[in-house]
């Protein structure tokens, strides 16, 4: 219930190719994190999965069914945005219930679903407020609540925590991990934060300039990177690179992680 497959997916804006042939499989219930330098196409790929951008070529499929031409609302996905994107004119309850209302779900059911999500995120006392009357952290929780209420097959998060302060970020990260455990849904998560990527992910996808560099479990990427780009990108502080010839070795480059050095 929620396995995603991308096959040779590409995206061009006019003459610029932004995504250059991505193959990826995310298993049902998996937590998959996209990382990569700014401008490498993480958000674009996520928006293509959501149906907010057309796919130039290739196929996007959920549970084996091709969804390239399906409207975003029909894909059984939910997305949480960096800027929260709450509807300013609706209360927290109506923000969370809007998708169900649009789908024609009976009122009592919507009420039950929003109450349940509110309880999971401790939003119950805020249900009748409008977004303008909430703090940043509360808004992000409402945005997450809005995603939960729809019971999607697939959750998409685009840097959901980057507008929060450090303490709140840790707390919300734990909350997202707990939600993933409780709901068992497939989640795809874009982040710049190494700690978020390493702690949340079952599977990390490293992207560079619209191509997948490596896919794997966090520790596999850390211990066994396929190339110097992945080696340099995963891990903080960054890996040191030396000319291998300087040490009398035959290969090109030698990488040493700072945390493995002892003085």
């Amino acid at each position, binding site marked *: 219930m929620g396995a995603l497959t991308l096959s040779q997916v590409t995206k061009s804006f006019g003459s610029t190719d932004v995504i250059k042939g991505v193959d990826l499989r995310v298993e049902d219930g998996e937590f998959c994190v996209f990382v990569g330098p700014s401008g490498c196409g993480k958000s674009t790929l996520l928006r293509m999965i959501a149906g907010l951008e057309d796919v130039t070529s290739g196929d996007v499929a959920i549970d084996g069914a091709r969804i390239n031409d399906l409207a*975003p609302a029909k894909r059984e996905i939910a997305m949480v*945005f960096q800027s929260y994107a709450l*509807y300013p004119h609706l209360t927290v309850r109506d923000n969370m219930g809007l998708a169900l209302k649009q*789908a024609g779900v009976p009122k009592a059911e919507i009420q039950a679903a929003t109450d349940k999500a509110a309880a999971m995120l401790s939003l119950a006392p805020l249900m009748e407020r409008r977004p303008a009357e909430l703090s940043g952290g509360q808004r992000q929780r409402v945005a997450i609540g809005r995603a939960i209420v729809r019971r999607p097959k697939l959750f998409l998060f685009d840097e959901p925590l980057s507008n929060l302060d450090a303490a709140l970020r840790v707390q919300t990260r734990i909350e997202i991990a707990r939600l993933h455990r409780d709901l068992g849904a497939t989640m795809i998560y874009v982040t710049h934060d190494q700690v978020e990527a390493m702690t949340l992910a079952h599977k990390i996808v490293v992207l560079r300039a619209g191509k997948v560099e490596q896919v794997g479990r966090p520790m596999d990427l850390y211990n066994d990177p396929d190339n110097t780009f992945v080696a340099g990108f995963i891990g903080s502080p960054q890996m040191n690179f030396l000319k291998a010839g300087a040490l009398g070795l035959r290969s090109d480059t030698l990488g040493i992680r700072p945390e493995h050095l002892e003085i």
Partner: protein
Amino acid sequence: MSQARHSITRSIAAHGVLILWTVIALFPVFVTVVNSFKSRKAIFAEPLALPGPESFDLVGYATVLKQGDFFQYFLNSMTVTVGSLFFVLLFGAMAAFALSEYRFRGNGLMGLYLALGIMIPIRLGTVAILQMMVASGLVNTLTALVLVYTAQGLPLAVFILSEFMRNVSADLKNAGRIDGLSEYTIFFRLVLPLVRPAMATVAVFTLIPIWNDLWFPLILAPSEATKTITLGSQVFIGQFVTNWNAVLAALSLAIVPVLILYLIFSRQLIRGITAGAVK
């Protein structure tokens, strides 16, 4: 301490300039309204004096209300203005949304074409417009005026509103799409409320030239049944004799409806003007 005094002198200076400007701007209105309540002799003897017990005279208003069908003229002006305003805002906002939201071939060119009307006065096309109206049998109808004014107001509306709509959060619109809102709902329920200050700005800038226009009512709809208030007031201005009492009274009356419309929009307008300043 010195800082405080400094800012007091500065604020006095600023207010002085503003008050001076207000006085200059309001002076013609003041003279018009004051003199509309005076007898003809008093208007010419002491144009700046307030109406006193001797000079007070409602003859202007009496003439206006007797002469012609002033209530009808008012109604015509109102219909034309409100109708044109409605269409300018509706179509202007819709075009602006399309230009700012969708990527399609020729988007930039279309935007330029729609904005071009700001620089080309519509009156240059008067003869062609008149021919079209004659051909379509719309001469001496309010429809003709509404059509022309809608065309006249659209370029500025599209230009201003598309700039504002570009600034509406893309994430918000996308969230709506994922939640299953139609593009129409996204436009009417999410985007329009957020650009309300810009809508008010456009409304005021569209409204005033339409209300005051003499040109098109004179050419396209001069019949008794379709006269606007501005055109109606012209009967008192003759080649040889001008009934100043009546002219001033008619003008004073004509201010009232725009003033009301303006007050409705002004709170939004001020938010629009200061939109960048307060944040």
